[in-house]
């Protein structure tokens, strides 16, 4: 059925950011009238590929062919002119302007003397919105619309151009089931009109529902492209995760003691539901799942940043309620957030002040004056134990490498002397060598008797480091595995929403 000539062909696309190669000789073809699913783990290079097709990034090597002719996408407007429409993960709209202007910005219909023809623009927008069965009209300010409606505007925008390739980067992430159905109806309509659709999703049901062919990316490399009928979910998963496990994770065996933290039926509407787990002394509990699965939200609730609506938290067998992180810290829980800049690190401070930030009260006298000798002693201790590489504890945090910044953040929380340490994506954005250091550190802390919860979207990391693994999908626990029964396929299945019984 597929025509001989592909509409768009990617040939040997390679993209590097600094030393990191995020796309490695990726080649595949997109045909007119097909829905092509692009899948891969977080960090597989999907978003980079989308941005290349959108004209935001230029590939370092390789070429893009349209109708067999090579094209170079210098900028987004040129990509648009060639018929490449991209719906980014976050709708990129203008909240202060109305729907019509959001659709036609930069290419408004012009009347005589190059005057924007508002009447025509509103009529055309309303015609488009009618086609999409939208419940708002062209003059509605975008500020007042929901995410689903905003997505609809992005689709209307694609329809208003002569779109030949429509790229949708996780368009369903923020939509309800009904809204997804409506979206798919439109996608099928576009397919029937001969538009090629590149569809990125983490949900298998959706992929197997709507896609004609599937391409899997892993670590920036093209793994396979196959018609959806020739693939099973299991095959797709193993293609996604089939990474060789590296010897980078030196997990030491720790003596596992009694239960320190127990969570029962924790629920917070819109974030997570009925989450239960235990962590023991000396144990590393890995939280596997895709970005947005609700793992961070659970951690925030345990740490008292948000309040759960139902469920209980037991610490050492005692029920506790934390109305603020300060209370959680007083009970010796520490949370190292994912975004070290936003929540963890004061970049303008030296290492020493960063480390002692959460405990300055215990270091200061009644006048609030900090005992600098003790402060330096504590900071130096962690500096040595964590093997932070810098010119000394006086070096400013902003001039450290990502891995060393992460160690400073961890040191800061260790200074509070926690019993339970929650680490959210502890190795994101740091290089391989520093990663191994952080892993060694986590493992060492466990042997010292700390209970550790490690949230990570990197499956090999979770598998290698954890004594037990909890998989979450869309706010629910979808699997729990012991170290010896966990493998990539089983955990990935659970993280993709296929409930399995791990026990």
């Amino acid at each position: 059925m597929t025509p001989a000539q592909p509409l768009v062909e990617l040939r040997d696309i390679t993209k590097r950011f600094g030393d990191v190669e995020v796309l490695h000789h990726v080649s595949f073809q997109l045909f007119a009238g097909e829905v092509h699913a692009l899948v891969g783990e977080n960090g597989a290079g999907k978003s980079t590929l989308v941005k290349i097709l959108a004209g935001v990034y230029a590939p370092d090597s390789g070429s893009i062919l349209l109708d067999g002719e090579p094209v170079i996408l210098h900028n987004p407007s040129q990509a648009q002119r060639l018929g490449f429409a991209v719906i980014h993960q976050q709708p990129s709209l203008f909240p202060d302007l109305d729907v019509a202007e959001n659709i036609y910005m930069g290419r408004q219909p012009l009347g005589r003397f190059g005057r924007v023809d508002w009447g025509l623009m509103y009529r055309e927008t309303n015609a488009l919105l009618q086609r999409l069965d939208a419940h708002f009209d062209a003059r509605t300010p975008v500020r007042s619309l929901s995410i689903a409606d905003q997505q609809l505007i992005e689709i209307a925008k694609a329809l208003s151009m002569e779109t030949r390739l429509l790229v949708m980067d996780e368009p369903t992430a923020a939509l309800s089931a009904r809204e997804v159905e409506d979206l798919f109806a439109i996608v099928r309509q576009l397919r029937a009109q001969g538009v090629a659709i590149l569809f990125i999703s983490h949900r298998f049901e959706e992929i197997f529902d709507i896609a004609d062919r599937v391409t899997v990316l892993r670590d920036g490399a093209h793994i396979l492209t196959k018609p959806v009928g020739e693939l099973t979910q299991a095959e797709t998963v193993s293609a996604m995760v089939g990474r060789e496990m590296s010897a980078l994770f030196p997990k030491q065996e720790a003596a596992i003691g009694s239960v320190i933290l127990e969570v029962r039926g924790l629920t917070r509407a819109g974030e997570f539901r009925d989450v239960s787990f235990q962590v023991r002394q000396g144990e590393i509990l890995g939280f596997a799942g895709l970005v947005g699965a609700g793992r961070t939200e659970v951690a925030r609730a345990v740490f008292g940043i948000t309040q759960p609506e139902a469920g209980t938290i037991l610490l050492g067998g005692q029920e506790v309620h934390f109305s603020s992180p300060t209370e959680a810290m007083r009970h010796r829980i520490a949370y190292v957030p994912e975004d070290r800049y936003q929540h963890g690190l004061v970049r303008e401070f030296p290492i020493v002040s960063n480390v002692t930030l959460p405990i300055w009260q215990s270091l200061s006298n009644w006048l609030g004056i900090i005992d600098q000798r003790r402060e330096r002693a504590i900071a130096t201790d962690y500096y040595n134990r964590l093997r932070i590489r810098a010119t000394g504890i006086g070096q400013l945090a902003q001039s450290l490498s990502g891995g060393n910044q992460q160690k400073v953040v961890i040191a800061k929380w260790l200074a509070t002397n926690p019993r339970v340490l929650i680490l959210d994506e502890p190795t994101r954005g740091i290089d391989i060598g520093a990663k191994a250091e952080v892993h060694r550190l986590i493992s060492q802390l466990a042997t010292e008797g700390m209970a550790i919860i490690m949230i990570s979207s990197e499956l090999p990391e979770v598998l290698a480091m954890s004594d037990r693994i909890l998989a979450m999908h869309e706010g629910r626990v979808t699997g729990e595995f012991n170290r010896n029964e966990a493998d990539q396929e089983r955990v990935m299945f659970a993280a993709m929403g296929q409930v399995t019984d791990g026990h």
Partner: protein
Amino acid sequence: MDTETTVNTHVTSKASSRGLARMVARVGQIRELGLLAVLGVVVAFVGVQEPRFLALSNIEQILQSIAIIAIVAVGETLVILSRNVDLSVGSIVGLSAFASADLLKGNPSLNLWLVFFFGCLLGAVLGAINGVLISYAGIPSIVVTLGTLNIYRGIDFAIAQGSQVNAYDVPESFLSIAANRILGIPLLIGVAAVIAIVASYLLRFSRQGRQVYAIGSNPDAAEIIGIRKARIVFSTFLLSGLLSGLAGVLWASRFALVDSHAASGLELLVIAAVVVGGVNINGGTGSILGAMLGTIILGTIQSGLEILRFSPFWLQAIYGAAILIAVTLDAVITRRVGRLLTERRLR
């Protein structure tokens, strides 16, 4: 497919959304209507106590006195709409005023059109310097224009060296420009009105004008869809400088006596007028009409306070209060409307 139900739901939902849109449009106008109401209150209040205030000649006097601010405010509105600010306009007006008056003093026979061309060009160059630093060197506009505010004023001091240009130094024909009338309308007011109308038209009906709003509303999205942000922002600063340069020549013509302190602090009056006029200081919303009404309100308040013989000390405090009241009102209305819309949508 069940066509009938689809059509039906469509009609009802469309009707309600159209009503909603109309309501929003109405509220959007209220800000300008509200400004008119404020103006009415001020005029009535002063007029009752001092009927002379309502005389046509006095109204003309007020409009004359704010015309120059209005011209600068048009440029400032463009800049603020794109989520930037131009603090250097007062210094550009001052430098242009002194330089053009000084030029004429040295060459009294110079064609007056050339003097205006010179002032506009000087302003455009100074504005372009701002624009290059902001758009292409990526320095925040508040920092750049705070710097150039001082640099441009410093250049003014350096070339003036404490001297001033007096009325007798320049040709009578130059001084009479500001007092001229065309079709019975004082030239200054006419020029300001034409500039405001042209700018309004361009903001509404040119693609570039709409892109100014887009950039102010969401700069990142603007770039993703391929709007040339740097170029547009550069243009707003260029225009702001050009209009300030023109305003400088008019200033010299109107006040006859120009020293290097001319138009000091004007930028604050201008920004106040624009913000009072409902232009969002974070960009994306507002109109030239609003900015002009803001200018007229502040000018009317000033004149009213003078005519009622208020202590000039009060003037500054009332300016401050007017700005705060306007901005607070703006925030409250925006929040109210937002809540109203959400409630309607949820229902």
